[in-house]
């Protein structure tokens, strides 16, 4: 899935992935403050632990990514959280690869950041938890679809022989997107009810609540 191992991707794809990820991580580190660092650490731990539990599904196996929630709660900080978790997975378990660390981080974190940028303001501006849950579900589906697309693109650019099959991608990523949507909706809906301010990546970035 999103953990592409060493020896598969071409050098230009690896270099481009590493460069963009380095930029994303630099942006993340620059924007992180005392409030963001523990949040990023918690979500990195959730991503790390969640990625270790997979469910066999046909020729593949899938696991939760939590990227929709990460995008909403961390913004660009998702790059730092994903990089940390992926690096530990490579070093401790050999899942993924060291040379593919950059592109794997990009494939997972970029869709999360984009989904958070699109649906984050909508989630924060609505006063209704149910609507926030709906937006969070959409963010999760967008993040998973983005990761699927970027993984397919990485493989296709490196070697067309490795281009993922649309049928298998649908078989694996569709259930994952639905599971991610359910989890993200529950998490965001809960936070919206108990502490809506926690949904903003930065304290000062919180949007005013608009009563519908």
């Amino acid at each position, binding site marked *: 899935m999103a953990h592409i191992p060493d020896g598969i991707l071409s050098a230009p794809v690896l270099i481009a992935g590493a460069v963009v990820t380095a930029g994303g991580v630099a942006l993340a580190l620059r924007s992180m403050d005392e409030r963001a660092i*523990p949040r990023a650490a918690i979500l990195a731990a959730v991503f790390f632990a969640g990625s270790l539990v997979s469910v066999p599904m046909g020729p593949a196996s899938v696991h939760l990514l939590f990227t929709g929630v990460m995008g909403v709660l961390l913004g660009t900080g998702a790059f730092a959280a994903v990089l940390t978790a992926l690096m530990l997975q490579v070093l401790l378990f050999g*899942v993924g690869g060291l040379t593919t660390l950059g592109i794997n981080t990009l494939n997972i974190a970029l869709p999360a950041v984009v989904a958070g940028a699109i649906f984050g303001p909508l989630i924060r501006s609505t006063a209704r938890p149910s609507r926030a849950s709906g937006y969070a579900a959409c963010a999760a589906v967008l993040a998973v679809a983005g990761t699927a697309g970027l993984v397919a693109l990485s493989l296709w650019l490196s070697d067309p022989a*490795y281009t993922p099959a649309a049928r298998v991608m649908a078989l694996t990523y569709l259930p994952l997107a639905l599971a991610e949507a359910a989890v993200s909706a529950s998490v965001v809906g809960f936070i919206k009810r108990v502490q809506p301010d926690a949904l903003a990546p930065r304290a000062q970035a919180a949007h005013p609540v608009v009563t519908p």
Partner: protein
Amino acid sequence: MIRALVLLCALLVASPAFAHKLKVFATLTDRTVSGYAFFIGGGRAQGAQWQALSGETVLAFGTTDDAGGFSFAAQRPQAPLVVTVDTREGHIAQAILPPERWAQTALAQDAQGAAPTSTVPQTPATPAPALAQSLERIVSTAVQRETAPLLARIEEMDARMRLTDIISALCLIAGLAGVALWALQRRR
């Protein structure tokens, strides 16, 4: 919320899966390469495409069976034989068999042909080194056949994750956050 948590817990408990890495196990017995593709602790890769390459030459290809298995006959290749399994959704793994493995198998097979089929003791004219060589080949065949399942088991155990590693990683993340907060405070 409670229902979602229960669902999540049920998923975690119901799945014996741990981790998410595809691995390929391949072994050679009687000039037949066989093996299977598996996710570490998470079952076999069923219906996945596999291909056997020696250098640039495609020796065999197909899709894995319900147990994630594959099998094909192969003569000794010039270059190492690489079996690649591709689930076609981003998981790709390889197993490599060096040509030296065929030499051992060939010796073993020759031994089977040369093995005495009668319990009648050999004539004193049989040279002792030849008998010793035959015996060695027979033993080699038997050992190869008996150790194949063990090698498969070792492959799976070697790749298994340990709870202590997972806890260490979570503590490392907490430690990194602490270091980042300390660095932030010092900068100010």
